[in-house]
């Protein structure tokens, strides 16, 4: 905290862009994309204005979670290369201002969702914000190496909220979209943490490579990758995806497994990277030789998830008939 207080003595005045950065715009854009897919896949005639309001509420709710996360985690953000430039640790915005912004936007987004759209979606949005801000940020993140596995639920819920906004309910297919992101998160995040683990170790965050070592992490990435592919193919059997989706899920899944296997057999995460020294300013996502396989899986995991959701979105917008193989 002393470090934070020292940082917060910065005299640079807070600009509106600093407050916008608190909302994690890049995360917001991903949340909007998956929520929109859920909303469209519900195949209900929601009024376009109400649909747009629902997506806006989900985006603002995600932003509010981000602001609360940056307020609570400012002490560890200040110690990590990836996050030390964030507005609170950089001293641009006071922690209390970030917290106030998070609380106000949470209340506005949930109330507007409830009054304008429906209370099932509003309830799910409130649960997601609370889960991310309280269960993940305040509790799991500093306590267990399973933090991102359980906390991943918050990132997986937006398609369910989008579906509920259109439908007023959350059927099994909505939860299947949630399950895909939920099972995808560990392999995606641990692939990243294999080459940024020194950052987490310095901040005292119990990420899997820090607590259990690189070999165990690579093994768990492989197991979660094997678990992931059936979930990704399942929508073609449950009346959600069509032929294009089955092709993308199947072919992409094969590439995913190949990359995960290569990572499993590699030595990624086992050699310290001199660029991760506190004073280093090299590119965070630069690749060192031993971590190339981790970087490849991390990059492909983003592409694969984006392709799956984009294909589902495209199929439903085009009105293609789902396969319903079961």
């Amino acid at each position: 905290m002393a470090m934070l207080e020292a940082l917060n003595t910065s005299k640079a005045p807070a600009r509106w862009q600093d407050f916008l950065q608190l909302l994690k715009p890049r995360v917001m854009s991903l949340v909007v994309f998956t929520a929109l897919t859920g909303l469209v896949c519900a195949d209900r005639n929601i009024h376009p204005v109400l649909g747009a309001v629902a997506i806006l509420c989900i985006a603002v709710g995600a932003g509010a979670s981000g602001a609360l996360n940056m307020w609570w985690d400012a002490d560890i953000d200040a110690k990590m290369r990836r996050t030390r430039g964030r507005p609170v640790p950089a001293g641009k915005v006071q922690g209390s201002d970030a917290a106030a912004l998070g609380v106000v936007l949470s209340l506005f987004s949930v109330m507007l969702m409830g009054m304008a759209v429906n209370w099932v979606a509003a309830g799910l949005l409130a649960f997601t914000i609370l889960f991310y801000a309280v269960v993940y940020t305040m509790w799991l993140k500093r306590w267990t190496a399973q933090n991102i596995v359980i906390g991943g639920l918050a990132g997986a819920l937006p398609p369910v909220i989008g579906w509920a906004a259109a439908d007023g309910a959350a059927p099994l297919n909505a939860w299947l979209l949630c399950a895909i992101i939920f099972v995808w998160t560990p392999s995606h995040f641990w692939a990243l943490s294999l080459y940024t683990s020194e950052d987490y170790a310095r901040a005292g965050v119990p990420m899997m490579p820090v607590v259990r070592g690189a070999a165990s992490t690579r093994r768990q990435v492989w197991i979660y990758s094997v678990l992931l592919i059936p979930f990704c193919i399942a929508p073609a059997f449950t009346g959600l995806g069509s032929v294009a989706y089955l092709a993308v899920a199947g072919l992409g899944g094969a590439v995913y497994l190949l990359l995960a296997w290569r990572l499993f057999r590699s030595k990624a995460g086992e050699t310290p990277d001199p660029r991760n020294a506190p004073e280093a300013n090299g590119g965070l996502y630069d690749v060192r030789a031993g971590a190339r396989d981790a970087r490849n899986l991390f990059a492909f995991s983003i592409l694969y998830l984006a392709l799956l959701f984009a294909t589902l979105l495209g199929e439903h917008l085009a009105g293609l008939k789902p396969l319903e193989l079961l």
Partner: protein
Amino acid sequence: MSDPSRESDAEAKARRGRNIALALGLLLFVVLIFVVTIVRLGGNVAERPF
């Protein structure tokens, strides 16, 4: 000698930017509530029994 309690140009500019952003946010919220009200009211008026 400058007054330390006086706002610098950079602070004044930053505050003005924050105020404009807040004003636009509030305006957007008011417009949003108005449009949502019209949409929801419109549907209910169309479905009301005579």
